[in-house]
């Protein structure tokens, strides 16, 4: 019998498996699809500190930044970890003033951020549009290839991985404590179950009889044809992105993080909107992405997009993930709801979950991520 069953083979489940097994636990990972079948396979691989304001999420991101750097030395190069740095640009004086205050808070929390005056932008990004007010450079912003990162973390965890098996029930004993899961391929017994099902976290929580209000928040990404190397050198985005991330509104929010990839394609993403699991193409979303990208890099106007894709971010109402034991059901742990930052936040999440499974002291204060912090109203028992 393993020490824990982890449900979900996305990047978060993989990181939980990795740190749990590093802590000496044996784990089984179950997913109804292949590796990275969920949002991990539909995300970009930004590991950002730049877009997070001082607070619990930034603390989690800073810990993750350190852990990703460590992991880059352990995982094979196909993981494509690269610390390329972020450049957040302000289009006008007001945006620059706001960005300055934002960056000041971040710096106090331990982030490296440097103001770049308007006339210094060309050195960092020669193709940026003229007339921008200035920018902040965040050298710690990095990236990985998300699906590969999940696959390599799982491999390094040496976990027992069961793919193509759907969890259909959470098994509990008479006292209400978790004793495993039922899958499409039979029962798996374990004293602990970790809910790492991302956007489907609400449904899994419901199988365990608890309410966790994870909602899907759709995002589109545009991919261009391959372009000459180093056309775009950093992760470049406009300061209004930060407002989009923190917004709770259901309407379409867009921002365009523009970045080059080793394959030469440029990624432009992503939009944010709450429309349930609607898979149809939104030309409005693509319009905004393309327009923002061309605003930042006018050379892109003549470039063609060869692909667009979308995914559904796991979204919790206060924009913080649910991480750790669920006091309502002994043996149930959550690691989901990371919204647009799950790739970045995966290692710190895994470390927190592993510590909780082992009853070790947590690496940072887990209180803001308590899974039972939401209203328990919505049909918990159903």
């Amino acid at each position, binding site marked *: 019998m393993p020490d824990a069953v982890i449900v979900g083979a996305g990047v978060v489940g993989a990181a939980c498996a990795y740190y749990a097994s590093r802590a000496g636990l044996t784990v089984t990972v179950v997913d109804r699809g292949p590796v990275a079948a969920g949002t991990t396979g539909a995300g970009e691989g930004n590991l950002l500190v730049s877009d997070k304001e001082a607070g619990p999420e930034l603390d989690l991101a800073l810990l993750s930044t350190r852990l990703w750097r460590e992991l880059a030395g352990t995982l094979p190069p196909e993981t494509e970890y690269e610390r390329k740095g972020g450049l957040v640009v302000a289009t006008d004086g007001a945006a620059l003033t706001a960005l300055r205050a934002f960056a000041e808070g971040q710096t106090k929390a331990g982030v490296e951020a440097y103001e770049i005056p308007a006339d210094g932008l060309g050195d960092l990004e020669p193709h940026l549009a003229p007339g921008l007010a200035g920018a902040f450079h965040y050298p710690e912003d990095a990236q990985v290839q998300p699906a590969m990162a999940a696959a390599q973390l799982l491999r390094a965890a040496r976990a027992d991985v069961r793919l193509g098996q759907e969890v259909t029930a959470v098994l509990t004993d008479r006292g209400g404590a978790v004793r495993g899961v039922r899958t499409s391929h039979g029962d798996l017994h374990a004293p602990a179950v970790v809910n790492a099902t991302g956007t489907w976290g609400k449904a899994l929580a419901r199988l365990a009889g608890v309410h966790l209000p994870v909602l899907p928040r759709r995002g589109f990404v545009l991919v261009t*044809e391959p372009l000459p190397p180093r056309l775009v050198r950093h992760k470049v985005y406009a300061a209004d992105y930060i407002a989009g991330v923190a917004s709770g509104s259901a309407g379409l929010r867009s921002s365009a993080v523009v970045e080059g990839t080793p394959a030469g394609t440029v990624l432009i993403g992503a939009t944010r909107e709450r429309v349930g699991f609607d898979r149809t193409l939104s030309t409005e979303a693509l319009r905004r992405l393309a327009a923002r990208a061309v605003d930042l890099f006018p050379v892109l106007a003549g470039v*063609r997009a060869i692909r667009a894709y979308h995914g559904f971010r796991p979204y919790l109402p206060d924009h913080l993930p649910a991480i750790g034991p669920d006091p309502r059901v002994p043996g149930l742990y959550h690691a989901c709801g990371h919204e647009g930052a799950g790739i970045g936040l995966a290692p710190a999440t895994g470390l927190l979950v592993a510590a909780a499974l082992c009853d070790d002291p947590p690496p940072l204060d887990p209180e803001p991520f308590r899974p039972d912090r939401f209203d328990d109203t919505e049909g918990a028992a159903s």
Partner: protein
Amino acid sequence: MTADLAVVGAGPAGLTAAATAARLGLDVTLLDAAQRPGGQLYRHPAGGPVPRPVRRLVRRLDRVTHLPHHHVWTVVRDGDTWLLHAVAGPDEAPAAVRARAVLLATGAYERQLPFPGWTLPGVVGAGGAQAMLKGGLALPGTGAPPAGTGPGAGGRIVVAGSGPLLLAVATTLAAAGARVPVLVEASGPAAYARHAAALARNPAKLFQGALYGGALLHRTTRLLTRHAVTAAHGTTRLEAVTVTRLDPDWRPVPGTGRRVPCDALAVGHGLVPQLELATGLGCATRRTPDGTPAVEVDAEQRTSVPGLWAAGETCGVGGAELASAEGEIAALSVAGRRPPAAAARRRARLRAFADALAAAHRPGPGWTDWLDGATEVCRCEEVTAARIRAAVTDLGARDARSVKLLTRAGMGWCQGRTCGPAVARLAGRDPAPDRRPLSCPVPLSQLAQPPGAEK
């Protein structure tokens, strides 16, 4: 301006549908990516003579707004109408069409199964070779045509793969002056007997006929069934191929390979429906008997999405006659008329025959045995069979999408159109319905400012 009907695709299905709908009084707009109407079968060079069947159909298009060279990259719902966005002309100009109903008649494209050496110059798709000849181009590998001869003159061209299209290709090549020493078909007559009453009455004879009818070929071309080209050889270009016997699962039989010298190889393993506009709109699909997904339609060619019809090979490969029959039924249905019973019967008979052929030519799972680890499966991103297999065995990929995420196979210029079916098979699956939200490359400037079509 809102059209009553927008038809995407000007092959036999779309042309027939557009003409029929216009005759019934509908205001029809017909869009096609190609410069000339006719689709895959009636492809012809600009400026050259128009094939007779196309002439007949085009004559009936006088009341149709025909927009050639318009590649529809997406169709979206806008209130109670549809908006079709297209990239138009050589300048890739933006265009949009608004319509109350849409008919998808986007046809099919050729299925390629890779083998060692298939990326050598001189190896071409069978349908592609056919299309090039019809388009007035010389075949790669045969050089420029000598004066007074056809475009394929003089060269030795092996035709290989599976499916009834191979015969048409061999005949066209021979007519153009090429020598076709051998036609290599992976399936065998037993497959015809096994699969369907529609084919079974005299399977061996039918099989011969289907593959080998032309008198032109009889004298000069050997027909080898249950064989495949399992390797292509050459240093800078194709010089020879290895032809190997297959077992019923298409596994190469060891020790049976022999070398056939040639100047070119035309190879294809049937066609697969072009689905992305339909899947983008959420249309339900079915799996055809050869394992590929196709748009699911009812007896009136309605898809599962109200206001959307589909006809022709996007609903399953079946030839031009079936495509036309479906186009006509669809047009009647859009106009609110019940298709006559005779048309429905004809469609059912042709579809049953097509499905039986599809079953008989379904690629056997053993074809993956003719790959070696170094064979490039995805040519755009240069991903080898070994890397794809490693993604499956070591990294947890289980379908084409997860292979793509872990290897980049299918992420390049062709967006998996060439390698998709092969990659799915290497992951142990039948291919899933294609998802390509952009059905062709679109300039960012155009995405940023899509033209709004007036109501």
